[in-house]
C-alpha cells in the first residue's frame, strides 16, 4: 500500500455533493420505520423489560436478591456502573478533545459518540442509585440545608461521584444540544408534516443559518469544548478514587486515575465502533463514516489497549516490588485464584486481541474489527469485575473468604442495562441526524477554499 503523505486523506468518499450529504443523513428521519426496525426494537425492549422486572424484584424484596455477600459487598451493580460510565467517555473525548486538537475526522462520528455518552451516563446513573438499597432516600445525597440536620460526607469520594457524574451529564447534554441546533434547523426546513415541523422548530431555537448565528455558535462550541475536556478526565478519575482512596490491597494504587481514564476511552471507542458498524451499513452512510474513520478509531483502541496493558503490568510489578505481602497475595490470587478465569478473559480481550490492529489489513477489515471490538467490550466489563470482586473476595483472614456468584437478578439487571441503552440508541437514530450535517459539509471537498481554487 502506497500512501501519498503530501496530501490529506479525503474525509468523505464517493464525491458526494453537499445536497447529497444532507439527503443521505436526513433520510432515516423522513421514512417510516420498516419491519427490521420494529424487530430490533422488540428485541431491545424485551431486554429492557428483563431489567425492569429484576429491578422491580429488587425494590420489592430488597438488594438481598443479588449475589452480594460477606466479604463481597460490592459486585455486579458497581461493575455495571463503572462499565457504563466508561462507555460514556468516548463521546466527549471525540467531540471535545479531538475538536481542540483540530482533528477533522471527528466530524462524521462525533454526534453519534456524544449521543452514546448521554445514554451511557443515564444507564450508569441507575446503578449507584439502586445500590444504596433505599433509592427513595437518594435525595439525601445532595447537600442542602434540611431540618433533619443531615449533611453529606464531603470527604467521601462516593459523594464526589454524585457531583462529577451530574456535572459531566449536564455539560455533555448542553454540548450535544448546541451541536444539534443547526441540524434541527435543517430538519425543520426539510420536513413536511406539521407535528414534526413544530417539534424541530421548537428545538432549533429560531436558527436562520446566518453569519451571526454561526459566529455565536462557533464561539460557544469552543468554550464548551474547553469545559468538557477536564470533565472527561475528572469523571473516571473520581470513579477510580472510589476504590483507590481505600486501603484495600488491589484497590489502593496510585496509577488508578490515569489507568481508569485510559480504560474508559478504550471501552468507549470499542462501543462506538460496535454500533457504528451497524449504523453505517443500515443507513448507507459508508461514504461518510468511511473505513478510514474506523481505522483511526481502531488505532486509538490499539493505543489505549496498550495503556491498559501497561497499567496491568505496572500494578503487578510494583505489587511484587513493594514487598507488602497482602499486595502480593492479591495479585497472585487474581492470576491463579478462583477468579483466574475472569482475569485471563480480561487480559486476553484487552491486551492480546487488540494487538491484531497493528496490521493495516486487519484494522480495515470490517469482520475482524467487529470481533475485536466486541471482545474489548467483554474484556472491559471483566476488568471492572476483576478489580471489584477479586480484591474483595479473600479478606485478610481466611475465615472471611468467600466466593461471589451472581443471581439471576444480577444478570437480569446487566441485560436490562444493555436493553435500555440500545432502545435509546434505536429511538435516537429515527429522531435526530446521526451525523452532524453542518460539520460534515464543512469538511467536504471544496467547502474549504484554498488558494489553489479548491483543486486536489
Amino acid at each position, binding site marked *: 500500500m502506497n500512501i501519498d503523505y503530501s496530501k490529506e486523506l479525503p474525509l468523505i468518499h464517493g464525491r458526494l455533493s453537499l445536497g447529497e450529504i444532507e439527503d443521505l443523513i436526513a433520510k432515516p428521519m423522513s421514512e417510516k420505520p420498516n419491519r427490521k426496525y420494529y424487530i430490533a426494537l422488540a428485541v431491545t425492549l424485551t431486554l429492557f423489560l428483563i431489567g425492569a422486572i429484576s429491578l422491580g424484584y429488587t425494590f420489592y424484596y430488597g438488594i438481598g436478591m443479588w449475589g452480594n455477600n460477606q466479604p463481597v459487598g460490592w459486585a455486579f451493580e458497581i461493575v455495571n456502573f463503572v462499565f457504563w460510565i466508561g462507555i460514556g467517555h468516548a463521546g466527549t473525548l471525540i467531540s471535545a478533545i479531538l475538536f481542540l486538537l483540530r482533528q477533522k475526522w471527528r466530524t462524521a462520528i462525533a454526534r453519534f459518540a456524544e449521543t452514546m455518552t448521554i445514554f451511557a451516563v443515564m444507564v450508569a446513573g441507575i446503578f449507584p442509585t439502586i445500590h444504596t438499597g433505599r433509592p427513595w432516600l437518594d435525595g439525601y445525597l445532595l447537600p442542602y440545608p434540611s431540618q433533619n440536620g443531615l449533611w453529606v460526607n464531603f470527604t467521601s469520594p462516593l459523594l464526589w461521584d454524585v457531583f462529577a457524574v451530574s456535572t459531566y451529564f449536564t455539560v455533555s447534554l448542553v454540548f450535544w444540544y448546541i451541536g444539534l441546533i443547526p441540524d434541527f434547523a435543517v430538519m425543520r426546513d426539510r420536513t413536511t408534516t406539521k407535528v414534526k415541523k413544530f417539534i424541530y422548530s421548537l428545538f432549533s431555537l429560531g436558527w436562520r443559518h446566518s453569519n451571526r448565528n454561526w459566529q455565536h455558535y462557533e464561539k460557544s462550541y469552543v468554550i464548551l469544548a474547553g469545559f468538557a475536556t477536564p470533565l472527561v478526565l475528572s469523571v473516571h478519575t473520581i470513579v477510580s478514587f472510589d476504590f483507590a482512596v481505600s*486501603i484495600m490491597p488491589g484497590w489502593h494504587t496510585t496509577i488508578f486515575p490515569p489507568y481508569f481514564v485510559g480504560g474508559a476511552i478504550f471501552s468507549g471507542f470499542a462501543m462506538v465502533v460496535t454500533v457504528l458498524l451497524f449504523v453505517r451499513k443500515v443507513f448507507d452512510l459508508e461514504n461518510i463514516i468511511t473505513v478510514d474513520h474506523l481505522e483511526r478509531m481502531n488505532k486509538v483502541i490499539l493505543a489505549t489497549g496498550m495503556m491498559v496493558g501497561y497499567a496491568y503490568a505496572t500494578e503487578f510489578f510494583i505489587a511484587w516490588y*513493594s514487598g*507488602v505481602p497482602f499486595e502480593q497475595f492479591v495479585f497472585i490470587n487474581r492470576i491463579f485464584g478462583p477468579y483466574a478465569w475472569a482475569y485471563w478473559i480480561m487480559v486476553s480481550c484487552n491486551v492480546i486481541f487488540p494487538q491484531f490492529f497493528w496490521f493495516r489489513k486487519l484494522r480495515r477489515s470490517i469482520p475482524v474489527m467487529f470481533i475485536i471490538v466486541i471482545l474489548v467490550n467483554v474484556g472491559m466489563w471483566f476488568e471492572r469485575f476483576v478489580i471489584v470482586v477479586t480484591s474483595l473476595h479473600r479478606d485478610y483472614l481466611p475465615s472471611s473468604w468467600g466466593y461471589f456468584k451472581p443471581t439471576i437478578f444480577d444478570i437480569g439487571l446487566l441485560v436490562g442495562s444493555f436493553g435500555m441503552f440500545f432502545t435509546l440508541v434505536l429511538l435516537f437514530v429515527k429522531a435526530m441526524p446521526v451525523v452532524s450535517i453542518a460539520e460534515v459539509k464543512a469538511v467536504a471537498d471544496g467547502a474549504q477554499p484554498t488558494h489553489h481554487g479548491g483543486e486536489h
Partner: protein
Amino acid sequence: MSNDNLQYEKKFLPGKVLNIGMALLAIGLIVGALAFVLDPVRAGFSYLLGFFFVLTIGVGALFIIALEYVAGADWSTPMRRVPEFLGSSVPFFLLLAVPLFFLMNDLYHWTHTAAVESDPILKGKEPYLNISFFIIRVVVIFVLWSAYYFFVVRNSRKQDETRDQKLTKKNIVLSAVFIPIFAITLTLAGIDWMMSLDAHWFSTIYGVYVFSGALLAGLAATTLAVVMLKERGYLHPRMHNDSLASLGGLLFAFINFWAYIAFSQFLLIWYANLPEETVWFIRRWEGAWSIITLVLIVVHFLVPYTMLVSAPSKKNPKRLKFAAVWILFAHLIDLYWLIMPEYHGEKSGFIYVLTEFGFPIAMIGGLVVLFYFNFNKHNAVPVGDPKLERGLMNRP
C-alpha cells in the same frame, strides 16, 4: 500570496552559540569539581540531577518525533529538526552514566550488601535491585533509545536528498514500535535512577509522573529553540506564527497533565495514610522542604497555567519563549524535589548549596554544544519531507 515561492536556505549558527555552550560546560565542570571535593556524596546526587534533567529533554524530544509520525501530524513537520537535534544527546548518556555506576554506593542504599542482608524488604527486592541487573537494564535501555534516534534521524536526513516517501512510512513503523518500548523503558529508568533512591518506597504512578515531566521538558526545549531560531530567520521563511499555537497548546495541556498526575499521587497517598507510602511525602514536608513543595505547585503549575491559558498567548512568540524557559526551570525544581530529599534524609532540612547546580549547568552547556554542531551540519528544515508543504499551509 506573493511570498509563496520562498524556499528554505541553509544558514549557519554563529560561533557565539558554541562559545556560550563551551562557557557553560566549563563553568559547570569547575563548579561540579569543586562540589565533588567539598562533599562527594552530595555531588553524586547533583550529578544525577543534571543527568536526569538533560536526559529528560532528550528523550522528551524523541517522543515528540515519534508522536508526529504516529499521529500523522503535519503542523510540526517544518520544525521537526529541532527535536531531532535535541535528541542527539541521548546516545551520549550511556557514557555519562558511567560515573554514576561508580557513585552507586553513595546514592543507593540497596547496594550495601550488609544492609540488604539485615532488611527483609530489601532482601525481597534483591532479584531486581542488584548492581549487575541494574547495569544491564541501563545499557539495554540506552541502546534501545539510541537505536531509535539513529534510525529515525538517518531516514529523516536521507529524505532531504531522496525525497522518498517510503522513508516516511519506515519512520512511522519505527515510531509506532518505539512508543510502547519507550513507555516501559522510561518507567524502568525512573524507578531505577530515582525511585530506588528510597528503596522501600513504591508508587505505581511514578512512571507516568516521570513521563509527564520528560515530555514537558522536551516540549519546552523544542519551543524555546523553535521560537528563537524562527525569530532570527533560521527556519523556513514561510513558517507562520500561527503554527506555534500547537506547541503552546501542547505545553498548556501537559502542564495540566503533570498537575493531574502529581495531584493524583499525592491525594491517594495522603488519603490512605499508610506509613510505608506517606514517608516519601513527609520527607518532602520536613523543615524547609515544605517551602520547595509549595514552590513547586506555584512554579510548575499555577504560573505556567496562567501564562498559557488564553488562546492568543499560545502563539505569541515572546510569551512562548518566556514560558518555555520558565517550564524548564520548573522541571529542574521538580527533579530537585524528587532527588535531593533522599540525600538529606531525616538528618537535616533543606539546605541550599550553589555548587549543586554545577553539573546541571555543565550538561546544559553540553547540550548547547551538541545542538550547535548538529545544526550547522544538517538542514534545519526537513526539506524532503512530503508533509512539509502541508505543515507550512496549516493555519489553525
